[in-house]
């Protein structure tokens, strides 16, 4: 009598969790925008045996955005998940992996991310500020003013904007714009940049020095601008092990 097929893997089984962690590490390592994501729930797992010690694994993952920018060297385990009231962003990913002799590798992944609905936030927290569009005029003005203010005070390298990661605008009790953005060090000092900022280029990858800034612009009742930037220092890029026929979108 043929042996009974193995019971289907449960989504919280250790093998499923190991596959999900390999998938989310791959997704974060191959993303170049926004913030790191972490596992909120393993939605489904399907294993298709290919032969002895060789399985194809299909995973459905529910992810949540963390507060760690994608370029931050902070380990994912130390990254705080953005709370619901802070206007969480969730990711839905379908990932195809292969497990050969116990070694997992990602063959393909496809993810969509979206902020939670503003109505849901408002039901729970009427006064919580919601995410603003990244091309909002007030957001763009705040980022430009904050970067100018930082560069005018720093004695280090002149920083250039890489991307705006997140922004919120609050109208009560004060009219406040909060913007979070990624920056890169350039080949100029802040002093040199005063003469000709246009000539300042981002450092080449082998010397790159990225960072992240948070700016808070209070517009009413009185004008105030606070900006805090943290540079990560030069990160030796992780050796990129090319995987066979990988496709990520």
């Amino acid at each position: 009598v043929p042996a009974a097929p193995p019971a289907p893997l449960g989504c919280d089984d250790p093998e499923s969790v190991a596959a999900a962690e390999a998938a989310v590490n791959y997704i974060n390592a191959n993303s170049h925008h926004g913030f790191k994501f972490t596992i909120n729930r393993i939605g489904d797992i399907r294993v298709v045996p290919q032969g002895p010690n060789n399985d194809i694994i299909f995973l459905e993952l529910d992810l949540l955005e963390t507060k760690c920018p994608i370029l931050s060297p902070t380990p994912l385990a130390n990254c705080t998940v953005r709370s619901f009231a802070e206007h969480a962003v969730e990711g839905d990913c379908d990932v195809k992996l292969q497990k050969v002799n116990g070694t997992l590798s990602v063959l393909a992944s496809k993810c969509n991310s979206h902020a939670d609905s503003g109505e849901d936030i408002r039901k729970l927290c009427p006064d919580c500020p919601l995410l603003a569009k990244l091309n909002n005029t007030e957001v763009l003005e705040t980022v430009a003013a904050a970067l100018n203010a930082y560069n005018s005070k720093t004695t280090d390298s002149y920083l250039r904007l890489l991307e705006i990661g997140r922004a919120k605008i609050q109208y009560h009790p004060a009219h406040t714009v909060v913007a979070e953005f990624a920056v890169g060090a350039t080949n100029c000092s802040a002093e040199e940049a005063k003469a000709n900022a246009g000539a300042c280029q981002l450092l080449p990858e082998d010397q790159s020095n990225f960072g992240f800034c948070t700016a808070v612009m209070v517009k009413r009742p009185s004008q105030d601008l606070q900006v805090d930037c943290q540079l990560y220092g030069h990160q030796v890029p992780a050796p990129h092990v090319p995987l066979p026929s990988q496709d990520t979108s």
Partner: protein
Amino acid sequence: SVAKRAVAEAAQHDKVPRPVGFVPPPPPCPGKIRHFDI
């Protein structure tokens, strides 16, 4: 001769009596929520 018993009847007789307080195992998927449900 083998008489084929009606399924319902067979099921009735074969139904394994469940111990009191039997809790069916949770469905294998989806897994547990680690942070919060959106």
